[in-house]
């Protein structure tokens, strides 16, 4: 009798947990293959200009170091190269939300450049 009740209690406690795991987890996992969350391939607004200051391939990997290097040079040495400035990015990549932010959200990085610096929305 005792054994049976403890078995019932065990089943009653485990069942919702298992059900929860089965139910919640797959939904959570599906979110990553196109059902929600990232919603498939990353779509960025293509720039208006024809050519970037460096090749797109290179920029994809290195734009953060490139910008950071230029930032330090501009602040500390006063070296301002017009073509390499963040301001110059805005001439082709007119929307931050549809270009920078979209990829940053996708890859889960949060650069804080735009807390202070102005970039047209």
């Amino acid at each position, binding site marked *: 009798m005792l054994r049976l009740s403890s078995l019932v209690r065990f089943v009653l406690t485990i069942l919702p947990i298992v059900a929860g795991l089965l139910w919640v987890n797959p939904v959570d996992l599906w979110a990553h293959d196109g059902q929600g969350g990232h919603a498939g391939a990353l779509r960025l607004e293509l720039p208006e200009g024809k050519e970037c200051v460096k090749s797109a391939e290179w920029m994809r990997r290195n734009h953060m170091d490139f910008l950071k290097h230029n930032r330090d040079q501009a602040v500390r*040495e*006063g070296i301002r190269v*017009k073509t390499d400035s963040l301001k110059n990015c805005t001439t082709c990549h007119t929307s931050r939300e549809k270009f920078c932010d979209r990829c940053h959200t996708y890859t889960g990085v949060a650069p804080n450049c735009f807390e202070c610096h102005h970039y047209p929305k």
Partner: protein
Amino acid sequence: MTMATLERRAVLGLAGALAAGVTLAPGMTLLAAPAERTEASAGRRWAMLIDTTQCAANCTACTTACRKENNVPLFGEPSRDIHWIRKVEIRDKDQRRPTVSLPVLCNHCENPPCVHVCPTEASFIRKDGIVLVDEHRCIGCRYCIIACPYKARSLVYHETKRGAESNPDVPIRSKGVVEKCTFCVHRLDNGQEPACVEACKGEGKGAMLFGDLNDPRSEIAKRVHTVATKTMRPDLGLKPRIYYQGL
């Protein structure tokens, strides 16, 4: 060693003077017109001369222009408000001398104590003698605020937001960094004068003069060598680059 440095300086000064470009006012030159690439020149020593006899007590053209140009916010809390430039009144207790009104800003000292104490090297002297804060590096420890005898620095205690009328060319500062006058470094690199000087020439009475001390042909170099000028607290040996006339 000292002689060698002096000679090097003189040569650099000459080079800077030769490199000077656009003439803004007679005898006053700034960097050449906006170029594709600019760099701070070690030959320059930017300085300011303020003629206190020309500075009206009720005029706030320089302070207003500075706030507008550099997005310096006002929070309405006197103890935490940020000032890059402020108007100060000097009264003689015995009333033997007239009351003088003058603007006080960062003195861009040759031996800046703020730079000396900075633990992260966020405060630094640029090649052309401008003392700056690299806000990317600043950790907000406020040693520099304590070290500065001119009260030129402020800590950003509050979040600031960009408004519609904010200047897009100047970044705002995030909470918890120290900020101060930059001599409008973004304008200098663009071949313009600081915003306060421009405003003083326009709305004010032209009490401010800005230029390169190392350029012997510049108006400021001539004036500093001919007119009796004073710097604030010269006893501290910081060699400030804001000169006051008629103090």
